[in-house]
């Protein structure tokens, strides 16, 4: 936990969310790329998510304050984009592509193997908080279908047999 400054003290929420000063600075720097600071709202949500794993309610108000816009505008964006998580997720997020090329080359088998291996379905997190499983729209890796992402890494083609070894790399 970093030191609490008077500035951040005002935006500490009930669950103890604090906007890290470095994150606030990153948001302000990001806002300079645009005519209006609102344009940095998606990046601001991603900045919070990179540190916290997800975006708690209190972060919405904090971002709104930094960018000088209404919390409703930030919330509207936070609930629209699929890669912004408004609930806690596991330490690693598995995004499995279910679009046409993957569907035609073994997505069903891969999905079943993931469910079996992880013991969870879409939108769920393993009890040890290690993995969250989500579907994702075409990853643009169709010549490597079926494809999936684990955190920042894209894999494909992935066979069911590859999964245990792959998942092991994400403790």
């Amino acid at each position, binding site marked *: 936990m970093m030191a609490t400054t008077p500035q951040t003290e005002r935006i500490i929420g009930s669950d103890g969310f604090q906007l890290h000063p470095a994150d606030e600075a990153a948001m302000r720097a990001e806002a300079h790329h*645009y005519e209006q600071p609102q344009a940095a709202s998606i990046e601001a949500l991603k900045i919070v998510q990179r540190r916290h794993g997800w975006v708690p309610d209190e972060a919405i108000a904090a971002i709104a304050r930094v960018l000088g816009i209404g919390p409703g505008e930030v919330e509207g964006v936070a609930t629209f984009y699929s890669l912004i998580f408004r609930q806690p997720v596991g330490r690693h997020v598995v995004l499995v592509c279910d679009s046409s090329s993957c569907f035609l080359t073994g997505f069903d088998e891969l999905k079943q193997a993931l469910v079996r291996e992880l013991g969870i379905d879409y939108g769920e997190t393993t009890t040890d908080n290690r993995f969250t499983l989500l579907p994702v729209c075409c990853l643009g890796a169709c010549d490597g279908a079926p494809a999936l992402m684990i955190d920042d890494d894209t894999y494909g083609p992935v066979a069911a047999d590859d999964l245990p070894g792959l998942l092991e790399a994400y403790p």
Partner: protein
Amino acid sequence: MSQSIASQRQSVRYRSRLLQPESERSADTHPLTWRLRDDGEVVWLAEYLRKEGYDSVSKALGNGDPKAIIATLKEANVRGRGGAGFSAGLKWSLTLQGGDMPRGYIICNADEMEPGTFKDRLLMEQQPHLLIEGMILAAYANNSRYGYIFLRGEYLESARVLNRALEEAREAGWLGPDINGSGFDFDIAVHTGAGRYICGEETALINSLEGKRANPRTKPPFPGQSGAWGKPSVVNNVETLCNVPAVILNGADWYQALSGGRTDDGGSKLYGVSGPVEKPGLWELPMGITGREILERAGGMRGNRQLKAWLPGGASTGFLLPEHLDLPLDFDTVGKEGSRLGTGLLTVVPQDKSMVAVMRNLEEFFARESCGWCTPCRDGLPWTVKLLQALELGQGEAGDIELLDKLAADCGPGQTFCAHAPGAAMPLQTALKHFRHEFEQGVTARSKAAEV
């Protein structure tokens, strides 16, 4: 991490690649890819400059005639490679500029999310400077003050490569104030998204860039009149912008001749194929190549499977049949067959796959990715999914197929703000046309009897 896990991870790590060796590619015939390396490593600035890099910028900015760029582009008839096929030169000629008009923006649509499409990723990950070069020309022609590369959030490797290349270009004076001594100022930032297919629609993309929900805007005004923050804005796909430098360097006639008389459209195109083929991949080929030639390059269907149907350019294009394999794949020819060229990356459906299941998968995608702005799309697509799910399980009711016809018609062009719903309707309408019997088999016998 143990050695074995590390090597296993590497072996299944996805890498974008072109299935054409350097020996097959030349500057004269492969303007998009001739600089790419066989080892797949990034062509950074030093190597790019050795390979005619930024020559078009020196030429165009040296001439000092931005309108000449637009004229050349129009004459070459460079058509939008994002899927719509709209003339890039015409689009640029409609951008408001001059007089009291403030300088606007050039926005690169790098939100590649059309199912079955994996071409822009290659250009960005292995040859970032060609895109930057194209954007400088676009900015000069349209008097844009700043550029954004709107990149989908999942393309982390593209972001890393582009940001480093932008830094290289800035340091070398190809971006920033007074580019190459021309007096022209321009710079570019990478803007990364956070998911949602709809961001690829150009007006939704502008809303998203402004930090709003990615709902489409009504047109007119078109982005060229009033786009990002109300300023004239040009939105072009990655591949479209990558075509511009060679056109400016070599001229409209050279570009037209690239297609070798196969079609009225000029240029080359990144074509590809995915699905159950032996070697799914990507090639730079003359515009107007046939589906058969692409399929042959991919080694044909995987195993002994037979081709049943194919999408010529992504999920939002219409199904074609094996009998269409000898048509030149250009915008107008494919359009006449009730489909669209789209992104030019084929998806093949094998004979043993149920078209009802394929359609269910496609419509699940469109329903999930609808932004919810227009009723036919928001409500019609989930309804379509429900009907298809029932038909797939053999639990359809009499009248379901006619209802699918109606829902598809209600999602057609002109019923909604953007092309998302029409994109969902086109594969469904063509599947119902070519494979109606498969859908009919999903209606229960009881229901059929009751109808009689």
